[in-house]
C-alpha cells in the first residue's frame, strides 16, 4: 500500500511539473510584487537634419459656471506651461497650507487619464516627481523605494528607502533594538525610558498640532445653562491630567488651538488663559445656576488611543473623580468608535471626550469645522462666535486675522462649548547612527537622513493602502506618497510653514481670491514625462469635478478635498 501511495504521489508531482513547464501560452497571471514597468529598450533614433519645432503649449482649464454649487474653487487655468491660476469663490488665507497637503500631490495628466484616475491602477506603477521611485511593493511585507536620479531637489542621501510595518509598538521597538530597522514610528510611551537609556537609539519627540477637549452640548440640560458649563470648566484640574496621563512634552491647553498656530493662538487678552482650576468657585457657580447638590450626567467616550488622548480610560476616570468634588455624579459610558462619533457629532451626548489633530496648519482647520460649520457637536452654534470665525477666515493679513481670533478665543471662554484640556506630543525613534533627522507634525525628512549603508529601513504601524493619495486619509499611506509625489508646495521639515515644491513662487490678488503659481521648470515624472501646468489642472480637475472621468480614486469619497475645499463641482444629487 505504501509503495502504491508513493508511486502515485511521485506520478502526480511529475505530471504537475511537466504540465506547468509546458502550459506556457494562455492569459496573464498576476505577479506577486508590484514593480515599476521596465523602461523600453533604447532604440537608435534616425539622424535628422533639424529638430522639429516644439509644439505650442495649449493650456487647459476647468471652471464652474458660478459659485452657487457651494465649493471653494471657481476655476483652475493653465495660463502657460509654467503658470497656473486658481480663482476662488471666496478668500482663503489658508490656501497655501491646503495645497501643500500630500493628498493634493500632482499627477502626470496623461498617465492619470490612462489609468482612469483609479487609485488601484495608479498604485501598481506610481508615477510622481518626488525624491524616490517605487522599486518594489511586496504586499503585506515591504515597499522598496529607490532614489530618483532626476529629482528636482537635492539628491536623496540614501539610495534605498525601505518601508515596513508592524501593528505592535513592542515589535517595532524590537526591530530597532535588534538593528533590522533604522527608525520606527510611534514607540509605546512606556518604552521612552528604555529608548533614551540606550546609547544606540535616539528618541525624537515632536508636537502634532492637536487638542483634547471635553465637549458639552448646550441643547441638553443642564448644559444649556452657561454657568453650568463654566462651573465644569473650573472644576477640571488640567495640569493633573497632563502630569499623570500624558508623555513628557505635552502641554496644558489654554485655548482650542495649539500655541504654534499664528494667527489663531492669542498671546494676550481675555481669551489667552482658560479658567483657573478652582473647585470651590465651581461649586458656588453651580449653586448659583440652580444646582447646589450637583447633578447626574453621563460622560461618553470611545476607547481609542490618539496622540491627543493616549490614556483615555484613565483620563475618563480622573474627570469622573474631579467632577465628583463639585457634586457632579458622572456615569462613564464607553462606546464603540463609530456610534460615538456619530452621536457626538449629532449633539446627542451631553458630556464627552474627544479631540482633533490638524489636517493642515491653519487655525481655520480647528475653528471653522468645530464652531462655524452648522455643526451640532456642541449643540446650537453661537452667532457671535460664528461671525468672528468667518470674518477671520476671509482675511489675508495675519495681524487682522489675529485680532478676530483674539475675540474668538474670548468668546469660546465665555460660552464654553468645550473645555480645552491638553495638547499631546508623540515621538518617533531612530537608530543613533542615522544622521540629520528632523521629525515634525507634518512630515519626516527621509530624503535627507544619512546612514552608513546608504539604505534606510523605516517601520511604521500599518501598510499603506494605496500609493496614490488623492482619495486617502490614512497617515501611513500619505507618508509613503510623500516619498513619491510632490504637491505644488510642501511643508518645511520639522515645521508647518508651506515651502516651494513644484511651484517656486506664488502670488495672491488683494483679496486672496486669485492665486497664481509659477511652476518649477525642467521637472520630469518618474516615467520621463515633463511636468507642466496642464498636469496641475488635470490633477485638480480629477479631484474637484465629480463628472470628470478621472474622478475615481479608491472609495470615491475624496474626503480631504471636500474637507478642505467644501464641495465637488457637479456633485451627484
Amino acid at each position: 500500500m505504501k509503495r502504491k501511495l508513493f508511486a502515485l504521489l511521485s506520478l502526480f508531482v511529475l505530471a504537475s511539473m511537466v504540465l506547468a513547464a509546458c502550459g506556457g501560452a494562455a492569459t496573464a497571471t498576476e505577479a506577486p510584487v508590484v514593480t515599476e514597468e521596465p523602461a523600453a529598450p533604447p532604440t537608435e533614433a534616425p539622424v535628422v537634419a533639424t529638430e522639429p519645432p516644439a509644439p505650442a503649449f495649449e493650456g487647459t482649464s476647468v471652471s464652474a459656471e458660478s459659485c452657487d454649487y457651494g465649493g471653494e474653487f471657481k476655476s483652475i487655468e493653465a495660463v502657460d506651461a509654467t503658470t497656473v491660476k486658481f480663482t476662488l469663490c471666496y478668500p482663503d488665507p489658508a490656501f497655501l497650507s491646503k495645497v501643500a497637503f500630500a493628498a493634493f500631490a500632482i499627477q502626470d495628466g496623461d498617465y492619470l487619464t490612462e489609468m482612469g484616475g483609479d487609485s488601484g491602477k495608479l498604485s501598481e506603477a506610481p508615477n510622481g516627481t518626488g525624491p524616490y521611485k517605487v522599486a518594489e511593493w511586496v504586499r503585506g511585507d515591504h515597499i522598496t523605494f529607490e532614489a530618483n536620479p532626476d529629482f528636482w531637489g537635492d539628491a536623496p542621501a540614501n539610495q534605498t528607502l525601505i518601508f515596513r510595518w508592524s501593528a505592535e509598538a513592542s515589535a517595532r521597538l524590537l526591530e530597532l533594538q535588534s538593528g533590522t530597522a533604522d527608525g520606527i514610528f510611534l514607540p509605546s510611551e512606556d518604552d521612552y525610558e528604555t529608548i533614551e537609556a540606550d546609547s544606540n537609539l535616539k528618541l525624537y519627540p515632536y508636537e502634532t498640532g492637536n487638542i483634547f477637549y471635553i465637549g458639552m452640548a448646550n441643547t441638553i440640560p443642564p448644559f444649556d445653562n452657561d454657568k453650568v458649563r463654566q462651573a465644569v470648566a473650573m472644576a477640571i484640574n488640567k495640569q493633573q491630567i497632563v502630569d499623570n496621563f500624558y508623555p513628557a512634552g505635552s502641554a496644558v491647553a489654554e485655548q482650542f488651538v495649539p500655541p504654534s498656530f499664528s494667527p489663531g493662538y492669542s498671546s494676550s487678552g481675555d481669551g489667552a488663559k482658560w479658567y483657573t482650576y478652582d473647585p470651590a468657585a465651581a461649586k458656588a457657580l453651580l449653586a448659583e445656576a440652580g444646582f447646589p447638590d450637583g447633578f447626574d450626567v453621563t460622560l461618553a467616550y470611545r476607547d481609542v488611543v490618539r496622540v491627543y488622548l493616549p490614556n483615555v480610560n484613565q483620563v475618563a476616570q480622573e474627570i469622573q473623580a474631579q467632577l465628583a468634588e463639585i457634586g457632579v455624579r458622572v456615569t462613564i459610558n464607553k462606546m464603540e468608535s463609530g456610534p460615538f462619533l456619530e452621536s457626538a457629532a449629532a449633539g446627542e451626548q451631553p458630556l464627552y471626550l474627544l479631540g482633533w489633530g490638524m489636517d493642515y496648519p491653519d487655525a481655520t482647520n480647528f475653528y471653522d469645522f468645530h464652531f462655524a460649520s452648522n455643526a451640532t457637536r456642541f449643540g446650537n452654534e453661537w452667532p457671535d462666535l460664528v461671525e468672528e470665525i468667518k470674518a477671520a477666515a476671509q482675511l489675508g493679513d495675519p495681524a487682522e486675522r489675529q485680532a478676530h481670533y483674539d475675540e474668538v478665543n474670548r468668546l469660546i471662554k465665555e460660552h464654553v462649548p468645550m473645555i480645552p484640556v491638553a495638547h499631546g506630543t508623540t515621538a518617533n525613534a531612530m537608530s543613533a547612527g542615522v544622521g540629520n533627522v528632523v521629525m515634525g507634525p507634518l512630515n519626516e525628512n527621509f530624503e535627507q537622513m544619512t546612514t552608513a549603508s546608504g539604505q534606510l529601513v523605516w517601520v511604521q504601524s500599518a501598510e499603506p493602502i494605496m500609493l496614490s493619495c488623492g482619495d486617502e486619509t490614512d497617515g501611513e499611506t500619505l507618508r509613503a506618497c510623500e516619498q513619491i509625489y510632490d504637491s505644488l508646495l510642501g511643508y518645511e521639515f520639522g515645521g508647518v510653514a508651506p515651502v516651494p515644491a513644484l511651484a517656486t513662487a506664488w502670488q495672491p490678488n488683494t483679496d486672496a481670491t486669485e492665486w497664481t503659481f509659477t511652476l518649477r521648470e525642467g521637472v520630469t515624472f518618474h516615467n520621463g514625462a515633463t511636468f507642466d501646468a496642464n498636469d496641475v489642472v488635470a490633477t485638480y480637475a480629477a479631484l474637484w469635478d465629480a463628472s470628470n472621468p478621472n474622478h475615481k480614486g479608491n472609495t470615491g469619497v475624496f474626503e480631504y478635498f471636500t474637507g478642505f475645499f467644501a464641495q465637488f463641482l457637479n456633485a451627484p444629487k
Partner: protein
Amino acid sequence: MTQFLLRRLVLLLPVLFGITFITFALARILPGDPCYAILGEKATVEQCDAFREREGLNDPILIQFGRYLNDIAHGNFGESLKDGRQVTQIILERLPMTIEVTIGAMFFSTTFGILLGVISAVRRNTAIDVGTMFGANIGVSMPVFWLGLMLAYLFAIVLKDTPFWIPPSGRLSSGITIPPLAETLDLQNLSGLWGTLVTLASYSVTFNALITGNFEVLRDALWHLILPCVAVGTIPLSIIARMTRSSLLEVFGLDYIRTARAKGLRERVVILKHAMRNALLPIVTVVGLSVGGLMSGAVLTETVFALPGVGTQLVSAILSRDYAVVQAFTVIIALIFVFVNLIVDISYVFLDPRVRMQ
C-alpha cells in the same frame, strides 16, 4: 473508499454553508462601522451614508447574504472595502505565508513532541520524564503572543552580535528579494487552476527559492521562519508530547508488547515498530486537531513577527470592518481545518487496518 470520500465531501457543503452564514452574520452583528474604519474618523454623516449605499450595506442582511452566496458560487469572494482589490488575489498573496508557518510549526511540534513523548514514556518516573512533562506543562500554558515577544527579545536583542542572533520579524532581510516564480520560469501566461497554483507558489518565498535554486533567499527565508514556527508550535508540541507519553504507556502494558519483549526483540524495535504504531492513532488525531490551533496561533504570531500572512491581514480586516476579507479568510481557514480533519480520518485506515471506511 470512494463512497466514503464522496459522502464526506457532500457533508462538507452544509458545514461550509453554516460557517459562511455565521461569519457573515457575526461580521455585521458585531459593533463597528466600516465607514469610519475605512474613510477615517473625520468622515461626515453624509459621506458615510453615501458609502454605505454604494457598498450595498443598507440592504437587508438576507439580501446581502444571498448576493454574497451568489458571488461565491461564481468563484468571486468580492472586493476589499478598504482598497478595492479582489479578495481572491489577497488570499493568494497571504495564504502561502501562513501555510509555511503552519507547516514549519507542525514539523517542529510533531518531531520534538513525539520524540519527547517517547523519551518520557521510556524513562517513565525518572528525572527526564518529570522534567519533560514539567516543560510540557509550561509550554502549553504560555500565551503565543507573549512567547513570541520573549523569543524575539532573547534571540534578536540578548543574543545580538552572536552567531545565535535571529531576526525578530519580517519575511526576508531588508534588501533581499526574489522575483516571482512565474517570471523566473517564464509562466506568466498561465491561467486557470495552473495559473492560480503558480501564483500561490510564487508568494511562498521558501518554495519559490527552493524551486529556483536561490539558496541565499532560501536560507534567509528559513532563518526568518525559525522564531514564528517555534512560537506557534510550542503549545501543540507540549500537547503532542503528553499524548505520546500517555498513549505509549497504555500500549506498553498490553500483552502483545510483553510477547514481543519475551521473543527477545530489541527494545528499539519493540517501541518503534510495535508500540508506536498502535500509539499513533490518538497522536495523529491530536496533530490533526492542532492544525486549527496552529492556524489561529498564526494570527497572533504573524502580528508579533510582522509576517505577511492570513493572520495580519485578518486582524487588519477585522479592525477596518472589511467584511469581504474577513468572511473569505474565515471560510478559507475553516476549509483547511475541515480538509485536514478529513485527511486525518483517512490516515486512520493506513495506520490501523482494523479501522475501515464506513
